């Protein structure tokens, strides 16, 4: 063993010991009970976990020191990610702050905004949401109708936003609004950093087909935002929106590809994607019998499960290829759409396959005493329907791949 790899193994031991000492009591055992999905408790657990990771120097990578960034050799970062994945640790990054807000502020924010907001995103102290989508501006996000009118040193905002993740717990949001009623499309929007406790800001839950309210909607009734909270130039919001969406797509893809952590931001026992979940599906197929035969002995299912395993590994190694490119200074941009679509469509295929495995039990959700694994698989199957719609529908992402990567005409 070389000196370098011996040092790295010692570091791995250090991370493992730290994890054992700091994970919630009973973590990883059948006795451990996850807090309810999207509950305050789940959110608090996520925040606390991010803070612990950050304080230990195990999070906050990729940002300059002056904004709270943590510096570490890439090999050590890889070890940390692997160990977090192996232990299925609570997903700390609180989704949108790290995935979307921090990279967008880094790219478009003023100095004071970077200094004020990024450290608290990295440490998990403040949560963020993205306020782009509207009832009539989903795939056609440039069609935003919410207005922002300048009055002195402030902007007055009126309108409605929808499909907001982290709607309930966010401290701050990145808002896009129409700032010029007469300017042409893509030149009429401005972005702002909005305090979610502002007077006139009303948030409401939106109940989805899963029965949960992961997303919410917000009403803006003369919400006043100081001009210094403007993110980017006036009427140049379209570029800010694109940067935000791209960061979210690539980050989301990477997370689901297994680079983030084993559990969802909101504390659900996400048996999401990753070789771990292939293992869980195989176990399920071995335990489940149909017509007197274990599902795992059915060649049709063996083919399908093997195919899922292939897709999971394809994601993993595509991630490594992307890292190798970045090391050579090639930054992936629109390729994020490839990753996003692949993970979302894979989640749907995985969900459907598990429903075929459990047969009649695919009808039972968490409230049923007969539900398999607390209805988690059924929930994931339905949640995957959202995956191919959020962060750009599969169709919009295919347009992006075709037009911006392959150069086909608009």
């Amino acid at each position, binding site marked *: 063993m070389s000196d370098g790899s011996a040092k790295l193994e010692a570091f791995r031991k250090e991370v493992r010991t730290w994890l054992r000492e700091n994970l919630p009591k009973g973590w990883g055992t059948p006795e451990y009970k996850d807090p309810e999905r999207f509950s305050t408790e789940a959110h608090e657990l996520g925040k606390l976990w991010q803070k612990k990771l950050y304080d230990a120097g195990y999070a906050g990578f990729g940002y300059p020191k002056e904004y709270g960034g943590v510096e570490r050799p890439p090999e050590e970062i890889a070890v940390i990610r692997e160990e977090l994945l192996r232990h299925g640790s609570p997903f700390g990054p609180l989704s949108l702050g790290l995935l979307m807000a921090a990279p967008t502020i880094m790219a478009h924010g003023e100095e004071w905004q970077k200094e004020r907001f990024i450290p608290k995103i990295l440490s998990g102290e403040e949560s963020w949401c993205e306020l782009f989508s509207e009832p009539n501006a989903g795939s056609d996000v440039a069609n935003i109708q919410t207005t922002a009118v300048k009055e002195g040193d402030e902007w007055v905002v009126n309108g409605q936003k929808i499909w907001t993740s982290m709607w309930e717990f966010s401290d701050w949001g990145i808002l896009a609004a129409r700032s010029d009623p007469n300017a042409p499309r893509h030149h009429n929007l401005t972005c702002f950093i909005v305090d979610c406790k502002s007077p006139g800001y009303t948030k409401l839950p939106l109940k989805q087909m899963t029965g949960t309210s992961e997303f919410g909607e917000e009403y803006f009734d003369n919400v006043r935002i100081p001009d210094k909270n403007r993110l980017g130039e006036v009427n140049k919001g379209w570029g800010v929106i694109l940067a935000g969406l791209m960061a979210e797509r690539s980050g989301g893809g990477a997370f689901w590809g297994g680079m983030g952590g084993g559990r969802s931001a909101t504390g659900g026992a996400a048996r999401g994607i990753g070789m771990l979940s*292939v*293992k869980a599906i*195989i176990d399920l197929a*071995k335990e489940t019998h149909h017509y007197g035969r274990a599902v*795992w002995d059915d*060649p049709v299912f*063996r*083919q399908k*499960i*093997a*195919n899922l*395993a*292939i*897709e999971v*590994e*394809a*994601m993993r*190694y*595509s991630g*490594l*290829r992307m*890292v*190798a*490119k970045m090391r*050579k200074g090639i930054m992936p941009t629109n*390729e994020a759409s*490839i990753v996003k*679509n*692949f993970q979302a469509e894979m989640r749907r295929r995985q969900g459907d396959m598990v429903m075929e495995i459990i047969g009649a039990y695919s009808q039972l959700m968490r409230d049923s005493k007969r539900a398999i694994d607390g209805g988690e698989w059924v929930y994931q199957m339905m949640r995957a329907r959202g995956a191919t719609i959020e962060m750009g529908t599969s*169709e919009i*992402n*295919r*347009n992006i*791949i*075709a*037009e911006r*990567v*392959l*150069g*086909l*005409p*608009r």
Partner: protein
Amino acid sequence: MEFGLTEEQEMLKTSAREFLEKESNRNHIRTMMEDEIGYSPELWKKMAGLGWVGLIFPGEYGGGEMGFRDLTVLCEEMGRALLPSPFVSTVILSGMPLLFAGTDKQKQEFLPEVAQGKQILTLAILEEDGDFWPGSIKTRAEKRGSEYILNGTKLFVWDAKAADYLLCAARTKHSSDPEDGITLFLLDAKEWGVYISPLNNLDLLRRQYEVVLSNVPVPAENIVGELNNGWAILKKMSLYATVALCAEMIGCGDKVLETTVSYAKERIAFGVPIGSFQTIKHKCADMLSGLEYARSLMEWAALALDDDDPDAPLAVSMAKASCGDVCKMVCDEGVQIHGGIGYTWDHDMHLYFKRVRASDTAFGDGNYHRELIARYIE
């Protein structure tokens, strides 16, 4: 594991692309489609001169001592150019078993000649069921003095008319274990009793043959590896061959996508380029995405083989299932998006279509490899 290309591999790729665009151009390919032997000896000499044929052989046998991942870079370019040549047959299917298991004398006798382009080899393995597995080997080899006498029929033998020697698997012992009792023989393709006839297979740029062996005498010193233990050598070689074919398929798929996208930008229908229609865009997006993920698995498999990673067989099966499925889809859509012109003999689209289908079948298709994966991961 280092994904992507090293500087050296970039150079190999660039020079191979330039060379093949010039040498394996449309004229050459169309000529070779009509050629009974199926390759150009002159071009083969040039390839040997560039060091391609001996690329992975040790220096003592006149080789370039490069790794397998380096070789896949070359295979990808050959696939892209549809190069008609006995390269895979000679270097991988037969060269690698010699390298793994040949005696010093055999290596000294064959490998330098091969590296210099003076000798062409191929593998005669498949029999009636067309599957790569030990149970299908029925060809018999019976000992008579210092010789073995071979009788049997080999099918789907690549490049047999071009080959000087055939590496042939035959049964030397009956055993309840089908892997036990298979021996590899290196036999002169011009020997009495070797009857080679074309199978008229779809892929005219990689011709396949039936090889009938009727009382063919082979000296015992031409056994490669141990008596009765030949299957393990073939199994090991098949991992490399499978990944080489994956790299070729990726090369084919990339070229098909490129050709198709540029056609979609130029072809006007209803007054606009067909590439402006979403239905065409979405197909092209799926072709690119599929190729990206298939390529990642191919690179993983090649690197795992170079590293002697114990997971290499899993990586190889995953790469093969993925590259086969994806590249078949890419060729299907390539033909479809080209419309009528893509369905003609004159357009190159069908050549890629046929090559990919041939490679998909070789060394097990997707269904076969998914079953291997299921056994591996359970």
